[in-house]
């Protein structure tokens, strides 16, 4: 039979999740414990490539949320679970605490109100002044008059997190279709009967729109309700671990109408993030940084912590938060009975992800999805991968690849890199390897190791060495072979 281009492959999962960011992958992981068939489709070449690839990494404990909202409920339900979850998934987490600083009388008046809000959210918070402020936040500016200390705020390796969610989901049978965009749909009565991607057709029972900054376009393609998602860009500066020694906890200012403003954030790995600013953009793929934006972020963070020193800057980058009005659009579509919208999760996607998956699972079960558990489903990754120099040195030294350090700044061995390229959801680009291992992400930014990482990656991606992708298709490391002189 001659295959017709019109007859693409057809899949009929119980649930089709659109989007493999931190939201989509957390839902996939929760559903993977049920005896149901789940597929995830993602337009980018890897999981966690959009909003999830560049964010604060804060695991918010919910202290400042609007009490009673679904967002507050999910963030609070997630907060206590990070220690257990991060151990099971091999994702770094630290409960570092946060101090909010007031510099003016007006700001100081907000502190008791914010303390009340924390207490209505059931979150511990303490008003601190003078010596107490200095104890909880020794790095804070001496100009701060008063502060609010929130001990339960945490930081997580938010880049690794969606990869880990997806890996566990994959191990439990969820199928991932990466590099496929949703381009259309068919309806039957009041529901979506078919979802068409650039490569195949899905006939799912339920569709979950977790497409982040693209959720409005996906809703359009599925003939769901009209809404718009704006990409809110935030610019960041990453400072060296060496500077991180002087940043024990998160510092932030009193929120205004424009949000929290830039923060000083120790990362799960000990480096420091400074940012973000907030700017709504026309283009949804604009992750560019600007000289003025970076300078502004640094200046505003120096108000919180005057010792911020940009000679420790390792890199500058920008991330996008999906902002919609109303924010946090989580629920059944008005237009389609089997379309569940999980959109506009602006800044708490990471923080609410541990509970989000289970919330969506329960919503689907009440709509008739089987609640039978999958037999033999695992709830942890068996190769939780501590960096070898965090205590895995002996095990690492036992194999030759583990003795070969490729990235000296982040201490990544050849074994780590090969592993990332062999995982259940393997890296398929240099950027994918970096996200899974941190190789090339240290203070020399790949000056010493990028070529090594590229050539190991090329062993797996196939093609000529120059074709090895940095990230998306079209991002090869070279343009061809060198000519022989």
């Amino acid at each position: 039979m001659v295959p017709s281009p019109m007859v693409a492959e057809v899949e009929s999962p119980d649930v089709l999740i659109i989007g493999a960011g931190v939201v989509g992958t957390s839902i996939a992981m929760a559903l993977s414990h049920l005896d149901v068939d789940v597929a995830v489709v993602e337009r980018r070449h890897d999981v966690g490539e959009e909003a999830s690839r560049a964010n604060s990494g804060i695991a918010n404990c919910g202290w400042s949320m609007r009490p009673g909202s679904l967002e507050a409920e999910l963030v609070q339900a997630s907060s206590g679970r990070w220690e257990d979850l991060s151990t099971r998934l091999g994702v770094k987490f630290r409960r570092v605490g946060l101090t909010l600083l007031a510099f003016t009388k007006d700001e100081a008046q907000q502190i008791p109100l914010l303390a009340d809000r924390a207490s209505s959210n059931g979150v511990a918070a303490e008003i601190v002044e003078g010596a107490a402020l200095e104890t909880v936040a020794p790095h804070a500016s001496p100009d701060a008059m008063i502060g609010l200390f929130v001990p339960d705020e945490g930081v997580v390796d938010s880049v690794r997190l969606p990869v880990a969610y997806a890996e566990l989901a994959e191990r439990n049978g969820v199928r991932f279709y990466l590099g496929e965009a949703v381009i259309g749909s068919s309806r039957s009565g009041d529901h979506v009967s078919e979802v068409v991607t650039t490569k195949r057709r899905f006939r799912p029972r339920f569709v979950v729109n977790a497409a982040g900054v693209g959720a409005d376009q996906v809703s359009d393609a599925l003939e769901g309700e009209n809404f718009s998602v704006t990409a809110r860009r935030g610019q960041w500066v990453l400072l060296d671990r060496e500077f991180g020694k002087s940043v024990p906890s998160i510092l932030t200012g009193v929120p205004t109408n424009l949000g929290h403003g830039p923060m000083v954030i120790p990362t799960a790995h000990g480096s420091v993030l400074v940012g973000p600013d907030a700017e709504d953009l026309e283009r949804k793929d604009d992750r560019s940084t600007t000289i003025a934006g970076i300078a502004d972020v640094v200046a505003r963070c120096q108000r919180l912590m005057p010792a911020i020193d940009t000679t420790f800057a390792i890199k500058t980058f920008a991330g996008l938060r999906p902002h919609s009005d109303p924010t946090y659009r989580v629920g059944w579509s008005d237009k389609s009975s089997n379309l569940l919208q999980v959109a506009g999760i602006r800044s708490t996607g990471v923080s609410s992800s541990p509970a989000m998956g289970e919330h969506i699972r329960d919503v689907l079960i009440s709509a008739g999805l089987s609640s039978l558990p999958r037999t033999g489903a695992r709830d942890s990754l068996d190769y939780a991968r501590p960096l070898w120099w965090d205590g895995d040195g002996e095990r690492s030294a036992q194999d030759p690849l583990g003795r070969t350090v490729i990235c000296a700044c982040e201490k990544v061995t050849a074994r780590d890199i090969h592993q990332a390229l062999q995982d259940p959801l393997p890296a398929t680009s240099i950027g994918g390897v970096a996200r899974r291992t941190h190789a090339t992400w240290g203070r020399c930014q790949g000056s010493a190791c990028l070529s090594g990482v590229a050539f190991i990656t090329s062993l797996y991606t196939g093609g000529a060495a120059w074709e090895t992708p940095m990230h998306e298709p079209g991002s090869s490391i070279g343009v061809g072979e060198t000519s022989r002189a």
Partner: protein
Amino acid sequence: MSPAPRLAWGRQVVREVVVVGSGQSGLLVARKLAAAGVGVTCVERLPEPGGQEPEPETRRMAQAAGRAGVKWLLGTLAFEYRDRSVRTLGVNGARTLAAEALVLATGSRPATRAELGIAGDRGAGVLPGSVVHHYLDSGVLPGRYPVVVGDGQLAATLCSQLLRSGAAHVTSIRSKPGEASAFPGTLTHWNSVLEAVEGFPRTATAIVRQAGESIRIPTDAVVLAARRIPMRNVENAVGPSRAVIDCFSSADPKSVEDAEATADAAFHRVLAELQ
């Protein structure tokens, strides 16, 4: 050069020092220390002494260091300095070496994008000069119309290497005014700063600031070969402290005399630390 001083302590106590890196400066300081009676282990990431400078000169220096009693730990990374000892991982497994002083002779790298303050998109094709060097050696042409940023030896070498390897046109961005000589075969912008790059998934435009004006240069690769920054990747020894001694010369291009002077200064600082 003044004769090397001998250490004042008795022969029964050998003071241990670790030298990280076995380029010219590392080899010279290791030899001087061993000749002065210090126990020296030289840790080199690559499989043979000489590091990234495997010239005949370096080979002779390595032989001289070996004769003076320097112990080698090759194919090994020194990754952490803690409690006066250095932790390493390499072809012979994990080791912990006593080190009353640590000499960092780990060479240099070009300035990163953040250090140069380059804004714009994160498309493929913005590459450290050191990586481009490896790519070209391995047959990968990073771009046909590359822009090379930098004034020193690395930039000069890469411009000529790129032209020989199949680049159709190389633009050289120089921070200095035009009195210096241009790298042969390049179109040179003097007194210029690379401000931003645009293009995703691949870099397409370099935006260069020159005399208060922005110039847009179409390109498919931006090569960062500006400045020489000391390579620092031994944890807890990223910045020099009392027992961590820097052996780095910012001279560009670097001569054997520069390496000698750098090694000599580091040698005397180690002795002072051990006294």
